[in-house]
């Protein structure tokens, strides 16, 4: 995904002379092409993220379209106050990109994990929060983000994420993409877990349960229209995210549900636990630990579906 990001940012910067790329001393060689084409608009801001965020806001206030890029905790929690005040309060078009989101850097330890970013970013007024599933959505997200009038946060993975074929690939911020239709249950995925969610749907299908799959590349603003329809139509709606069960997309939907009259659908959520992961492990190990696997998702959805059907 990060290669696609560098490629798309390079393309877009050649189309729009307002685009500036700020990196926090990361991406060795990743931005060589960008620098080659638009070197005057690339800045390595060093390991100084609070300043990087403020510089980006100053550029946005001066009519430019800055993108800031580094590993997710450093582009979110590290400079959160600058994001809140400089970007959100002033409502300026800064695009904040966090790479290696969720458990992508599981093996680097909790300093590099980011299972809180959706929660803290979506609570900020004026902020748009995007979590593309793959490089196709990432390119669409980046292009759309740079057209926004206010700040946008994009959480992306690392590298080698599979591209998921979708029934519909029309992209619009705030509108989910239907990956596949289904009549019995609905699985909502946000971010890079989509291939696992599609596999969970396949496993459900082999058990005779037909699952619809939605890719929620936008966490905020919440696609209330789709949410309303799926909670009216399906007895089980499962939300899957590589994020703490607190405060992410499932949290956002739960907040929304609390404001509605009783609906048919039951919300179940899959995410990481409220803890730091102290043991060493790969991303797939960490996903397994928190039940973010096709086996666990399909089993739990099946249980919930059977329970409700009886």
């Amino acid at each position, binding site marked *: 995904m990060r290669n696609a990001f560098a490629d798309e940012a390079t393309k877009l910067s050649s189309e729009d002379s307002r685009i500036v790329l700020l990196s926090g001393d990361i991406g060795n060689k990743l931005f060589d092409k960008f620098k080659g084409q638009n070197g005057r608009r690339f800045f390595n801001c*060093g390991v100084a993220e609070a300043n990087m965020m403020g*510089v980006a806001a100053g550029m946005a206030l*001066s009519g*430019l379209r800055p993108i800031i890029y580094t590993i997710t905790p450093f582009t979110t929690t590290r400079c959160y106050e600058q994001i809140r005040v400089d970007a959100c309060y002033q409502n300026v078009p800064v695009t904040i990109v966090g790479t290696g989101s969720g458990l992508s850097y599981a093996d680097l330890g909790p300093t590099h994990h980011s299972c809180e970013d959706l929660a803290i970013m979506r609570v900020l007024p004026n902020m748009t929060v995007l979590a593309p599933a793959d490089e196709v959505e990432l390119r669409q997200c980046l292009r759309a983000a740079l057209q926004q009038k206010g700040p946008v946060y994009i959480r992306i993975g690392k590298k080698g994420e599979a591209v998921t074929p979708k029934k519909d690939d029309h992209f619009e911020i705030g509108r989910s993409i239907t990956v596949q239709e289904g009549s019995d249950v609905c699985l909502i995925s946000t971010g890079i877990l989509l291939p696992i969610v599609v596999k969970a749907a396949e496993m459900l299908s082999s058990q005779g349960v037909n699952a619809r799959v939605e890719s929620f590349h936008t966490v905020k603003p919440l696609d209330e229209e789709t949410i309303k329809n799926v909670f009216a139509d399906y007895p089980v709606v499962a939300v899957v995210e590589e994020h703490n069960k607190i405060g992410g997309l499932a949290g956002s939907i739960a907040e929304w549900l609390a404001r509605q009259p009783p609906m048919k659908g039951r919300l179940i959520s899959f995410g990481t636990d409220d803890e730091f992961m102290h043991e060493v492990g790969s991303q797939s190990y960490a996903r397994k630990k928190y039940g973010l696997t096709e086996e666990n998702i399909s089993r739990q959805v099946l249980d919930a579906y059977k329970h409700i059907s009886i």
Partner: protein
Amino acid sequence: MELEKLQEIASEIRGRIISTSHKTKTPHLGSCLSCVDILVAVYFHSLRIDPKKPRDPDRDRFILSKGHGAAALFQVLAMRGFYPESMLDSYGEDGGIFAEHPPTPDHLAGIEAATGSLGHGLPIGLGMALSARIQKQSYKVIALLSDGECNEGSVWEAAMMAAAQKVDNLMVVVDFNKWQATGRSEEILALAPLVDKWRAFGWDACEINGHDMGQLVEVLTKEKNSEGKPVAVIAHTVKGKGVSFMEDDNNWHYRIPSEEELVSAHKELGLVK
């Protein structure tokens, strides 16, 4: 503008700030009074601005990074013509725009950044200064910091990046009044030697008397240095400057003047005929 005229404006602004503080119970009087001369020299002498075109892309920018000096900035902007002085009658009222810190640029003409949380103004100013280079414009950016604000790490992050990028259209003025909210700035965190710190960070730094209008005017109109360095002006100031019983007394960081104190302050400033 002649120095005497600038000094007159500064006294008038001081009087208005004290009146507003008395009327609206707005604190930070000491911090406001220490930077009045700097603000007057910046707005009435240095900045290339047209208050009728507050968003002109090639205007010079000023950022009050020590946002708690807003009560001073609001008076200066009004007197400079960014908005009618009568707007300030609603200072501090519910539903109004004039708070203890500057609002966002979208909410008040003349404001370049919504400051109030310290350590934000210099990075934003650096972004603006770099934008001038990218967009091939000739404007300059001045950020006014307090000495207490130099506690913030983001100030020094920005200082290093500005030096690395050889940003020569950026100036920092430190309103060095030797106090921060709860004590002497030198005792709370080791600030000295402040001018050497800026030099060590790659800036062209100098020290002036921040109440001497002649020195302020001179330093604010200095030609760019030939080495492409950003400029830091350490302006030695007195907190509460202009009113004898407020000067260098940190109680006026939060204290509100009484009716009697208001009258004697105005007398000292030569505002009572």
